[in-house]
Protein backbone atom coordinates (compact mmCIF):
# COMPACT_ATOMS: atom_id res chain seq x y z
CA UNK A 1 0.00 0.00 0.00
CA UNK A 2 1.51 3.27 -1.09
CA UNK A 3 2.03 6.10 1.38
CA UNK A 4 1.70 9.76 0.59
CA UNK A 5 3.22 12.81 2.21
CA UNK A 6 1.07 15.82 1.58
CA UNK A 7 0.16 19.25 2.69
CA UNK A 8 -3.47 18.96 3.69
CA UNK A 9 -5.72 21.93 4.14
CA UNK A 10 -7.79 22.05 7.31
CA UNK A 11 -11.40 22.18 6.16
CA UNK A 12 -12.94 22.31 9.60
CA UNK A 13 -11.74 22.24 13.17
CA UNK A 14 -14.27 21.97 15.96
CA UNK A 15 -14.16 21.36 19.67
CA UNK A 16 -16.68 18.62 20.43
CA UNK A 17 -16.46 18.94 24.17
CA UNK A 18 -13.80 19.24 26.88
CA UNK A 19 -10.48 18.46 25.25
CA UNK A 20 -11.93 16.56 22.33
CA UNK A 21 -11.54 17.95 18.84
CA UNK A 22 -12.81 16.98 15.48
CA UNK A 23 -11.02 18.05 12.33
CA UNK A 24 -11.47 17.51 8.61
CA UNK A 25 -8.62 17.58 6.14
CA UNK A 26 -8.50 17.80 2.36
CA UNK A 27 -6.39 14.78 1.46
CA UNK A 28 -7.67 13.15 -1.73
CA UNK A 29 -4.92 10.58 -2.13
CA UNK A 30 -5.24 9.42 1.43
CA UNK A 31 -9.03 9.48 1.41
CA UNK A 32 -9.10 7.31 -1.66
CA UNK A 33 -6.80 4.68 -0.25
CA UNK A 34 -7.61 4.65 3.43
CA UNK A 35 -8.97 1.62 5.26
CA UNK A 36 -10.42 1.60 8.77
CA UNK A 37 -7.69 1.10 11.35
CA UNK A 38 -5.10 2.99 9.39
CA UNK A 39 -3.68 6.24 10.63
CA UNK A 40 -1.94 9.39 9.52
CA UNK A 41 1.24 10.85 10.99
CA UNK A 42 1.10 14.59 11.50
CA UNK A 43 3.77 17.23 11.82
CA UNK A 44 2.12 19.97 13.81
CA UNK A 45 4.98 22.46 13.80
CA UNK A 46 7.94 23.29 11.62
CA UNK A 47 10.09 24.06 14.66
CA UNK A 48 12.07 21.38 16.50
CA UNK A 49 9.73 21.32 19.49
CA UNK A 50 7.74 19.15 19.18
CA UNK A 51 10.22 17.30 17.00
CA UNK A 52 8.46 14.16 15.86
CA UNK A 53 5.23 13.55 14.03
CA UNK A 54 2.19 12.38 15.97
CA UNK A 55 0.00 9.46 14.87
CA UNK A 56 -3.77 9.91 14.73
CA UNK A 57 -6.26 7.37 13.46
CA UNK A 58 -8.36 8.02 10.41
CA UNK A 59 -11.77 8.60 11.93
CA UNK A 60 -13.68 8.68 8.69
CA UNK A 61 -13.55 9.46 5.01
CA UNK A 62 -15.99 11.52 3.01
CA UNK A 63 -15.16 12.03 -0.65
CA UNK A 64 -11.73 13.60 -0.73
CA UNK A 65 -11.83 14.51 2.96
CA UNK A 66 -10.48 12.58 5.87
CA UNK A 67 -11.60 13.11 9.42
CA UNK A 68 -9.58 12.91 12.61
CA UNK A 69 -10.84 12.93 16.15
CA UNK A 70 -8.35 13.71 18.88
CA UNK A 71 -7.91 14.55 22.50
CA UNK A 72 -5.59 17.32 23.60
CA UNK A 73 -3.16 15.58 25.96
CA UNK A 74 0.15 17.38 25.46
CA UNK A 75 2.29 19.66 23.39
CA UNK A 76 1.53 18.50 19.88
CA UNK A 77 -2.19 18.01 20.25
CA UNK A 78 -2.40 21.43 21.88
CA UNK A 79 -0.67 23.04 18.91
CA UNK A 80 -2.91 21.08 16.56
CA UNK A 81 -6.03 22.34 18.29
CA UNK A 82 -4.86 25.93 17.85
CA UNK A 83 -4.72 25.54 14.08
CA UNK A 84 -7.49 27.20 12.15
CA UNK A 85 -9.53 26.29 9.14
CA UNK A 86 -7.54 27.03 6.00
CA UNK A 87 -4.15 26.28 7.49
CA UNK A 88 -2.04 23.48 6.03
CA UNK A 89 -0.92 20.35 7.82
CA UNK A 90 2.00 18.17 6.76
CA UNK A 91 0.66 14.62 6.94
CA UNK A 92 1.74 11.15 5.87
CA UNK A 93 -0.71 8.35 5.26
CA UNK A 94 -2.55 6.11 5.06
CA UNK A 95 -0.24 4.20 7.40
CA UNK A 96 -0.45 0.75 8.95
CA UNK A 97 -2.44 -2.29 7.99
CA UNK A 98 -5.98 -1.51 9.11
CA UNK A 99 -8.66 -3.95 10.22
CA UNK A 100 -9.15 -7.08 8.15
CA UNK A 101 -12.78 -7.38 7.13
CA UNK A 102 -14.97 -7.65 4.13
CA UNK A 103 -13.00 -10.18 2.26
CA UNK A 104 -13.98 -12.80 4.78
CA UNK A 105 -17.25 -14.52 5.50
CA UNK A 106 -17.66 -12.51 8.68
CA UNK A 107 -18.81 -9.70 6.49
CA UNK A 108 -22.39 -10.71 6.75
CA UNK A 109 -22.25 -11.93 10.32
CA UNK A 110 -22.71 -9.94 13.48
CA UNK A 111 -19.81 -7.83 14.56
CA UNK A 112 -18.92 -6.34 17.87
CA UNK A 113 -16.82 -3.21 18.28
CA UNK A 114 -15.29 -2.45 21.66
CA UNK A 115 -13.96 1.07 22.22
CA UNK A 116 -12.21 2.37 25.31
CA UNK A 117 -11.68 6.15 25.55
CA UNK A 118 -10.24 7.51 22.31
CA UNK A 119 -10.46 4.00 20.90
CA UNK A 120 -13.65 5.16 19.21
CA UNK A 121 -11.53 7.05 16.66
CA UNK A 122 -10.68 4.20 14.26
CA UNK A 123 -13.78 2.14 15.13
CA UNK A 124 -16.15 4.81 13.89
CA UNK A 125 -14.56 4.58 10.46
CA UNK A 126 -14.81 0.80 10.67
CA UNK A 127 -18.50 0.98 11.62
CA UNK A 128 -19.17 3.06 8.53
CA UNK A 129 -17.46 0.61 6.25
CA UNK A 130 -19.07 -2.43 7.90
CA UNK A 131 -22.52 -0.92 7.50
CA UNK A 132 -24.13 -3.89 5.86
CA UNK A 133 -23.79 -6.10 8.91
CA UNK A 134 -25.33 -5.99 12.37
CA UNK A 135 -22.98 -4.09 14.58
CA UNK A 136 -23.01 -3.92 18.33
CA UNK A 137 -20.76 -1.19 19.68
CA UNK A 138 -19.60 -1.12 23.27
CA UNK A 139 -18.22 2.23 24.33
CA UNK A 140 -16.40 2.63 27.62
CA UNK A 141 -15.06 5.63 29.51
CA UNK A 142 -14.30 6.70 33.03
CA UNK A 143 -17.40 8.80 33.30
CA UNK A 144 -20.46 9.92 31.37
CA UNK A 145 -18.83 13.11 30.03
CA UNK A 146 -16.03 11.12 28.45
CA UNK A 147 -18.23 8.79 26.45
CA UNK A 148 -17.53 9.53 22.82
CA UNK A 149 -19.28 9.16 19.47
CA UNK A 150 -22.41 7.54 20.90
CA UNK A 151 -24.71 9.35 18.51
CA UNK A 152 -22.41 8.91 15.58
CA UNK A 153 -22.44 5.17 16.06
CA UNK A 154 -26.21 5.20 16.37
CA UNK A 155 -26.54 7.22 13.21
CA UNK A 156 -24.36 4.72 11.44
CA UNK A 157 -26.98 2.14 12.34
CA UNK A 158 -25.14 0.42 15.17
CA UNK A 159 -26.55 -0.87 18.42
CA UNK A 160 -24.75 0.96 21.18
CA UNK A 161 -24.19 0.00 24.82
CA UNK A 162 -22.05 1.99 27.18
CA UNK A 163 -20.02 1.32 30.28
CA UNK A 164 -18.59 3.85 32.72
CA UNK A 165 -16.16 3.19 35.53
CA UNK A 166 -18.19 5.34 37.89
CA UNK A 167 -21.58 4.14 36.71
CA UNK A 168 -22.68 7.61 35.63
CA UNK A 169 -24.05 6.07 32.45
CA UNK A 170 -24.91 2.54 31.35
CA UNK A 171 -23.13 -0.47 32.76
CA UNK A 172 -21.00 0.29 35.80
CA UNK A 173 -17.55 -1.11 35.25
CA UNK A 174 -15.10 -1.64 32.48
CA UNK A 175 -16.18 -1.98 28.92
CA UNK A 176 -14.42 -5.34 28.86
CA UNK A 177 -16.66 -6.49 31.71
CA UNK A 178 -19.65 -5.34 29.70
CA UNK A 179 -18.38 -7.43 26.82
CA UNK A 180 -18.01 -10.38 29.16
CA UNK A 181 -21.56 -10.00 30.38
CA UNK A 182 -22.83 -9.80 26.84
CA UNK A 183 -20.97 -12.90 25.78
CA UNK A 184 -21.99 -14.79 28.91
CA UNK A 185 -25.61 -13.98 28.50
CA UNK A 186 -25.21 -15.08 24.92
CA UNK A 187 -27.30 -12.08 23.95
CA UNK A 188 -24.97 -11.50 21.14
CA UNK A 189 -22.44 -13.85 19.63
CA UNK A 190 -20.27 -11.96 17.18
CA UNK A 191 -18.10 -13.46 14.54
CA UNK A 192 -15.34 -10.98 15.11
CA UNK A 193 -14.53 -8.57 17.88
CA UNK A 194 -12.82 -5.37 16.82
CA UNK A 195 -11.32 -3.41 19.67
CA UNK A 196 -9.30 -0.27 20.29
CA UNK A 197 -8.42 1.26 23.64
CA UNK A 198 -6.00 1.08 26.54
CA UNK A 199 -3.65 -1.86 26.68
CA UNK A 200 -5.29 -3.47 29.70
CA UNK A 201 -8.66 -3.36 28.04
CA UNK A 202 -7.28 -4.97 24.91
CA UNK A 203 -5.68 -7.69 26.97
CA UNK A 204 -9.02 -8.41 28.64
CA UNK A 205 -10.74 -8.52 25.26
CA UNK A 206 -8.09 -10.89 23.95
CA UNK A 207 -8.57 -13.20 26.92
CA UNK A 208 -12.30 -13.25 26.37
CA UNK A 209 -11.97 -13.87 22.66
CA UNK A 210 -9.79 -16.80 23.53
CA UNK A 211 -12.26 -18.11 26.11
CA UNK A 212 -15.17 -17.90 23.70
CA UNK A 213 -13.13 -19.01 20.69
CA UNK A 214 -13.89 -15.85 18.79
CA UNK A 215 -11.68 -13.99 16.37
CA UNK A 216 -10.59 -10.61 17.70
CA UNK A 217 -8.73 -7.81 16.01
CA UNK A 218 -7.04 -5.37 18.31
CA UNK A 219 -5.67 -1.96 17.41
CA UNK A 220 -2.55 -1.23 19.51
CA UNK A 221 -0.62 1.89 20.40
CA UNK A 222 3.10 2.28 20.92
CA UNK A 223 5.29 5.35 20.98
CA UNK A 224 6.10 6.03 17.33
CA UNK A 225 9.12 7.92 16.14
CA UNK A 226 8.73 7.44 12.40
CA UNK A 227 5.39 5.76 11.66
CA UNK A 228 6.77 4.24 8.47
CA UNK A 229 8.61 1.20 9.75
CA UNK A 230 12.08 2.69 9.70
CA UNK A 231 13.08 3.19 13.33
CA UNK A 232 11.97 -0.11 14.90
CA UNK A 233 10.77 1.92 17.87
CA UNK A 234 7.18 0.74 18.02
CA UNK A 235 7.54 -2.98 18.38
CA UNK A 236 5.17 -5.34 20.12
CA UNK A 237 5.70 -8.98 20.99
CA UNK A 238 3.86 -11.48 18.84
CA UNK A 239 4.09 -15.19 18.59
CA UNK A 240 5.96 -14.64 15.35
CA UNK A 241 8.53 -12.38 16.99
CA UNK A 242 8.60 -8.63 17.37
CA UNK A 243 6.36 -6.73 14.98
CA UNK A 244 6.16 -3.01 14.24
CA UNK A 245 2.88 -1.47 15.34
CA UNK A 246 3.18 1.18 12.62
CA UNK A 247 3.74 -1.28 9.80
CA UNK A 248 2.55 -4.82 10.57
CA UNK A 249 -0.02 -3.15 12.90
CA UNK A 250 -1.59 -1.21 14.42
CA UNK A 251 -4.20 -3.99 14.11
CA UNK A 252 -3.21 -7.46 15.26
CA UNK A 253 -5.19 -10.65 15.60
CA UNK A 254 -5.59 -11.33 19.31
CA UNK A 255 -4.24 -14.82 18.91
CA UNK A 256 -1.05 -13.52 17.32
CA UNK A 257 -0.06 -11.37 20.28
CA UNK A 258 2.30 -12.47 23.02
CA UNK A 259 1.40 -10.02 25.81
Amino acid at each position, binding site marked *: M*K*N*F*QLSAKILSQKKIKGNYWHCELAAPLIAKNACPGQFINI*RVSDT*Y*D*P*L*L*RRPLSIHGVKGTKIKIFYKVVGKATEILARKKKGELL*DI*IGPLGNGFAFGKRKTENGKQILVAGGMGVAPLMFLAERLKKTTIQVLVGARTREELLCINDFKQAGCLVSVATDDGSAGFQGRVSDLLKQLLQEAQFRPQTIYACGPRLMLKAVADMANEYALAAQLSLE*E*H*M*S*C*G*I*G*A*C*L*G*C*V*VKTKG*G*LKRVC*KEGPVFAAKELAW
Partner: protein
Amino acid sequence: MPTRLAVEIGKLKLSNPVMTASGTFGYAEEFQDFMELKKLGAIVTKTLTLKPRQGNAAPRTCETPAGMLNSIGLENPGLEIFIQDKLPFLKKIGIPIVMSIASEEEPEEFLELVSRINLIPEVAAVELNISCPNVRGKNSLIAQDAEATYQIVQEVRKRTDKVLITKLSPNVTSIGEIAESAEKAGSDAISLINTLGGMSIDVQQRKPKVSSGIAGLSGPAIRPVAVRMVWEVFNKVKIPVIGMGGITDVPSALEFIIAGATAVSVGTANFINPKISLAIVSGLKEYLVSNKIADIQELVGSLKI
Protein backbone atom coordinates in the same frame (compact mmCIF):
# COMPACT_ATOMS: atom_id res chain seq x y z
CA MET B 1 28.17 27.57 -13.89
CA PRO B 2 28.67 23.83 -13.63
CA THR B 3 28.91 22.70 -10.01
CA ARG B 4 30.28 19.47 -8.75
CA LEU B 5 28.63 17.64 -5.87
CA ALA B 6 30.51 14.37 -6.25
CA VAL B 7 32.81 13.33 -3.45
CA GLU B 8 35.07 10.42 -2.64
CA ILE B 9 35.39 8.42 0.54
CA GLY B 10 38.55 6.46 -0.07
CA LYS B 11 37.96 4.65 -3.32
CA LEU B 12 34.22 4.97 -2.89
CA LYS B 13 32.69 7.47 -5.29
CA LEU B 14 29.45 9.21 -4.37
CA SER B 15 27.45 11.30 -6.80
CA ASN B 16 26.72 13.68 -3.94
CA PRO B 17 27.70 13.87 -0.30
CA VAL B 18 24.32 13.02 1.24
CA MET B 19 23.98 9.61 2.86
CA THR B 20 21.44 8.17 5.25
CA ALA B 21 22.50 7.24 8.76
CA SER B 22 22.44 3.68 10.01
CA GLY B 23 19.26 2.69 11.80
CA THR B 24 17.26 5.66 10.59
CA PHE B 25 16.51 4.54 7.07
CA GLY B 26 15.44 0.97 7.65
CA TYR B 27 16.67 -1.06 4.68
CA ALA B 28 15.60 1.75 2.30
CA GLU B 29 12.36 0.04 1.26
CA GLU B 30 10.50 2.09 3.82
CA PHE B 31 11.40 5.27 1.92
CA GLN B 32 10.66 4.24 -1.65
CA ASP B 33 7.23 5.87 -1.59
CA PHE B 34 8.79 9.20 -0.74
CA MET B 35 11.77 9.58 -3.03
CA GLU B 36 13.88 8.34 -5.88
CA LEU B 37 16.36 6.41 -3.80
CA LYS B 38 18.98 6.37 -6.51
CA LYS B 39 19.51 10.11 -6.15
CA LEU B 40 21.08 9.66 -2.73
CA GLY B 41 24.84 9.68 -2.33
CA ALA B 42 24.81 6.37 -0.49
CA ILE B 43 22.68 4.30 1.83
CA VAL B 44 23.95 2.91 5.11
CA THR B 45 22.03 -0.10 6.37
CA LYS B 46 20.73 -0.60 9.88
CA THR B 47 23.55 -2.22 11.81
CA LEU B 48 23.75 -5.97 11.24
CA THR B 49 25.10 -8.68 13.46
CA LEU B 50 25.97 -12.21 12.49
CA LYS B 51 22.99 -13.77 14.20
CA PRO B 52 19.51 -12.25 14.40
CA ARG B 53 19.00 -9.95 17.38
CA GLN B 54 15.66 -9.27 18.96
CA GLY B 55 16.70 -5.99 20.52
CA ASN B 56 15.30 -4.35 23.62
CA ALA B 57 11.83 -4.31 25.11
CA ALA B 58 9.32 -1.54 24.37
CA PRO B 59 9.12 1.40 24.92
CA ARG B 60 12.19 1.95 22.82
CA THR B 61 11.98 5.61 21.94
CA CYS B 62 10.80 8.89 23.42
CA GLU B 63 10.95 12.52 22.48
CA THR B 64 13.18 15.05 24.27
CA PRO B 65 13.61 18.79 23.64
CA ALA B 66 14.61 19.01 19.96
CA GLY B 67 15.77 15.42 20.14
CA MET B 68 14.82 11.84 20.79
CA LEU B 69 16.13 8.90 22.75
CA ASN B 70 16.31 5.43 21.29
CA SER B 71 17.29 2.10 22.59
CA ILE B 72 16.48 -0.33 19.84
CA GLY B 73 19.20 -2.68 20.99
CA LEU B 74 20.39 -3.42 17.46
CA GLU B 75 17.35 -5.41 16.45
CA ASN B 76 18.22 -6.95 13.11
CA PRO B 77 17.52 -10.14 11.19
CA GLY B 78 21.16 -11.24 11.13
CA LEU B 79 23.43 -11.45 8.13
CA GLU B 80 21.84 -14.42 6.36
CA ILE B 81 18.30 -13.13 6.32
CA PHE B 82 19.55 -9.69 5.42
CA ILE B 83 21.27 -11.12 2.37
CA GLN B 84 18.18 -13.06 1.42
CA ASP B 85 15.43 -10.56 2.15
CA LYS B 86 16.88 -7.07 2.21
CA LEU B 87 19.93 -6.99 0.01
CA PRO B 88 18.15 -7.68 -3.31
CA PHE B 89 16.13 -4.47 -2.98
CA LEU B 90 19.20 -2.46 -2.00
CA LYS B 91 21.20 -3.85 -4.92
CA LYS B 92 18.62 -2.74 -7.42
CA ILE B 93 18.86 0.90 -6.38
CA GLY B 94 22.24 1.17 -8.01
CA ILE B 95 24.01 3.47 -5.60
CA PRO B 96 26.74 2.59 -3.10
CA ILE B 97 25.50 0.48 -0.22
CA VAL B 98 27.36 0.74 3.06
CA MET B 99 26.88 -2.18 5.39
CA SER B 100 26.96 -1.23 9.03
CA ILE B 101 28.06 -4.07 11.25
CA ALA B 102 28.45 -4.69 14.95
CA SER B 103 29.59 -7.61 16.95
CA GLU B 104 28.67 -9.10 20.27
CA GLU B 105 31.96 -10.88 20.70
CA GLU B 106 34.97 -9.06 19.40
CA PRO B 107 36.89 -9.56 17.31
CA GLU B 108 35.67 -12.93 16.05
CA GLU B 109 32.22 -11.83 14.96
CA PHE B 110 33.51 -8.74 13.17
CA LEU B 111 36.00 -10.85 11.27
CA GLU B 112 33.43 -13.46 10.36
CA LEU B 113 31.04 -10.75 9.18
CA VAL B 114 33.68 -9.05 7.10
CA SER B 115 34.84 -12.24 5.47
CA ARG B 116 31.28 -12.94 4.39
CA ILE B 117 30.67 -9.39 3.22
CA ASN B 118 33.82 -9.61 1.12
CA LEU B 119 31.85 -12.02 -1.05
CA ILE B 120 29.07 -9.55 -1.79
CA PRO B 121 30.21 -7.32 -4.65
CA GLU B 122 27.26 -4.96 -4.28
CA VAL B 123 28.35 -3.86 -0.84
CA ALA B 124 30.64 -0.93 -1.46
CA ALA B 125 31.80 -0.26 2.05
CA VAL B 126 31.67 -1.51 5.59
CA GLU B 127 30.91 0.76 8.52
CA LEU B 128 32.19 -0.59 11.82
CA ASN B 129 29.68 0.34 14.46
CA ILE B 130 31.88 0.23 17.52
CA SER B 131 29.85 2.95 19.15
CA CYS B 132 26.35 1.63 19.65
CA PRO B 133 25.32 2.33 23.22
CA ASN B 134 22.31 0.04 23.04
CA VAL B 135 23.87 -3.36 23.23
CA ARG B 136 22.92 -4.67 26.58
CA GLY B 137 25.36 -5.94 29.15
CA LYS B 138 28.35 -3.87 28.25
CA ASN B 139 29.74 -1.09 30.32
CA SER B 140 31.85 0.58 27.73
CA LEU B 141 32.18 0.75 23.99
CA ILE B 142 35.13 -0.10 21.81
CA ALA B 143 34.98 3.45 20.50
CA GLN B 144 35.56 4.76 24.02
CA ASP B 145 39.05 3.33 24.07
CA ALA B 146 41.75 4.34 21.61
CA GLU B 147 43.69 1.11 21.98
CA ALA B 148 40.64 -1.14 21.56
CA THR B 149 39.62 0.90 18.53
CA TYR B 150 43.04 0.47 17.03
CA GLN B 151 42.98 -3.29 17.58
CA ILE B 152 39.64 -3.98 16.03
CA VAL B 153 40.08 -1.65 13.06
CA GLN B 154 43.44 -3.16 12.31
CA GLU B 155 42.12 -6.72 12.45
CA VAL B 156 39.26 -5.88 10.13
CA ARG B 157 41.49 -3.88 7.82
CA LYS B 158 43.69 -6.94 7.30
CA ARG B 159 40.69 -8.93 6.15
CA THR B 160 38.96 -6.67 3.67
CA ASP B 161 39.66 -4.46 0.71
CA LYS B 162 36.28 -2.86 0.90
CA VAL B 163 36.16 0.76 1.93
CA LEU B 164 36.32 0.73 5.71
CA ILE B 165 34.50 3.37 7.73
CA THR B 166 34.80 3.52 11.50
CA LYS B 167 31.87 5.03 13.36
CA LEU B 168 32.75 6.83 16.55
CA SER B 169 30.92 7.58 19.75
CA PRO B 170 30.66 11.14 21.11
CA ASN B 171 30.73 9.79 24.66
CA VAL B 172 34.45 10.30 25.01
CA THR B 173 36.89 12.76 26.50
CA SER B 174 38.88 13.21 23.32
CA ILE B 175 37.30 12.34 20.02
CA GLY B 176 40.43 13.35 18.14
CA GLU B 177 42.46 10.69 19.87
CA ILE B 178 40.05 7.90 18.98
CA ALA B 179 39.86 9.10 15.38
CA GLU B 180 43.63 9.07 15.16
CA SER B 181 43.72 5.46 16.33
CA ALA B 182 41.24 4.44 13.69
CA GLU B 183 43.24 6.25 11.04
CA LYS B 184 46.50 4.64 12.12
CA ALA B 185 44.84 1.25 12.09
CA GLY B 186 43.94 1.72 8.43
CA SER B 187 40.36 2.99 8.41
CA ASP B 188 39.51 4.73 5.15
CA ALA B 189 37.13 7.18 6.79
CA ILE B 190 35.66 8.21 10.10
CA SER B 191 31.93 8.65 10.58
CA LEU B 192 30.56 10.51 13.58
CA ILE B 193 28.66 11.02 15.73
CA ASN B 194 26.68 8.11 17.02
CA THR B 195 24.16 9.00 19.76
CA LEU B 196 25.03 10.68 23.05
CA GLY B 197 24.13 8.67 26.14
CA GLY B 198 21.00 10.10 27.70
CA MET B 199 18.05 9.38 29.91
CA SER B 200 14.58 10.76 30.31
CA ILE B 201 12.28 10.03 33.23
CA ASP B 202 8.52 9.82 33.53
CA VAL B 203 8.16 11.64 36.83
CA GLN B 204 4.67 10.36 37.55
CA GLN B 205 5.74 6.75 37.30
CA ARG B 206 9.34 7.43 38.37
CA LYS B 207 10.49 5.17 35.58
CA PRO B 208 12.75 5.82 32.60
CA LYS B 209 10.74 6.68 29.50
CA VAL B 210 12.73 4.16 27.48
CA SER B 211 12.77 0.67 28.95
CA SER B 212 16.53 0.25 28.95
CA GLY B 213 17.00 3.33 31.15
CA ILE B 214 20.00 4.83 29.41
CA ALA B 215 19.45 5.35 25.69
CA GLY B 216 20.93 7.25 22.77
CA LEU B 217 20.19 10.91 22.14
CA SER B 218 19.90 12.10 18.54
CA GLY B 219 18.35 14.92 16.56
CA PRO B 220 18.90 18.69 16.32
CA ALA B 221 19.59 18.94 20.06
CA ILE B 222 22.98 17.28 19.61
CA ARG B 223 23.98 19.10 16.44
CA PRO B 224 26.38 21.59 18.09
CA VAL B 225 28.22 18.73 19.79
CA ALA B 226 28.45 16.85 16.50
CA VAL B 227 29.69 19.86 14.52
CA ARG B 228 32.33 20.53 17.17
CA MET B 229 33.53 16.93 17.04
CA VAL B 230 33.66 16.88 13.25
CA TRP B 231 35.82 20.00 13.43
CA GLU B 232 38.11 18.39 16.02
CA VAL B 233 38.47 15.20 14.02
CA PHE B 234 38.97 17.08 10.75
CA ASN B 235 41.88 18.82 12.39
CA LYS B 236 43.37 15.58 13.64
CA VAL B 237 43.18 13.12 10.76
CA LYS B 238 43.77 13.14 7.02
CA ILE B 239 41.16 10.56 6.05
CA PRO B 240 37.69 11.79 5.09
CA VAL B 241 35.07 12.46 7.71
CA ILE B 242 31.38 11.60 7.36
CA GLY B 243 29.48 13.98 9.59
CA MET B 244 26.12 13.45 11.23
CA GLY B 245 24.11 14.41 14.28
CA GLY B 246 21.01 16.54 14.00
CA ILE B 247 21.15 17.36 10.31
CA THR B 248 17.65 18.50 9.38
CA ASP B 249 18.05 20.93 6.53
CA VAL B 250 20.46 22.50 4.07
CA PRO B 251 22.13 24.93 6.49
CA SER B 252 22.75 22.20 9.04
CA ALA B 253 24.27 19.92 6.40
CA LEU B 254 26.47 22.83 5.35
CA GLU B 255 27.63 23.34 8.93
CA PHE B 256 29.12 19.84 8.90
CA ILE B 257 30.75 20.25 5.52
CA ILE B 258 32.26 23.60 6.46
CA ALA B 259 33.49 22.01 9.70
CA GLY B 260 35.30 19.34 7.72
CA ALA B 261 32.90 16.62 6.66
CA THR B 262 33.42 15.26 3.14
CA ALA B 263 29.98 13.65 3.30
CA VAL B 264 27.03 13.90 5.66
CA SER B 265 24.47 11.45 6.93
CA VAL B 266 20.86 12.27 7.64
CA GLY B 267 19.47 10.43 10.66
CA THR B 268 16.54 11.36 12.86
CA ALA B 269 15.36 13.91 10.31
CA ASN B 270 14.27 11.03 8.06
CA PHE B 271 11.54 10.31 10.60
CA ILE B 272 10.26 13.87 10.51
CA ASN B 273 10.41 14.41 6.80
CA PRO B 274 11.14 11.27 4.80
CA LYS B 275 12.00 13.40 1.76
CA ILE B 276 14.54 15.57 3.50
CA SER B 277 17.75 13.90 2.32
CA LEU B 278 17.01 14.61 -1.33
CA ALA B 279 15.87 18.13 -0.48
CA ILE B 280 19.31 18.59 1.04
CA VAL B 281 20.99 17.36 -2.14
CA SER B 282 19.24 20.05 -4.17
CA GLY B 283 19.81 22.67 -1.52
CA LEU B 284 23.54 22.01 -1.50
CA LYS B 285 23.60 22.49 -5.24
CA GLU B 286 21.80 25.81 -4.92
CA TYR B 287 24.21 26.97 -2.26
CA LEU B 288 27.15 26.20 -4.50
CA VAL B 289 25.60 28.07 -7.39
CA SER B 290 24.63 31.13 -5.39
CA ASN B 291 28.02 31.26 -3.71
CA LYS B 292 29.84 30.62 -6.98
CA ILE B 293 31.62 27.54 -5.72
CA ALA B 294 32.55 25.11 -8.48
CA ASP B 295 33.19 22.03 -6.38
CA ILE B 296 31.74 21.11 -3.02
CA GLN B 297 35.16 19.90 -1.95
CA GLU B 298 36.24 23.54 -1.72
CA LEU B 299 33.78 23.90 1.12
CA VAL B 300 35.07 20.97 3.15
CA GLY B 301 36.71 22.34 6.28
CA SER B 302 36.50 25.90 4.99
CA LEU B 303 35.63 27.31 8.40
CA LYS B 304 37.32 30.65 9.04
CA ILE B 305 38.54 30.62 12.58
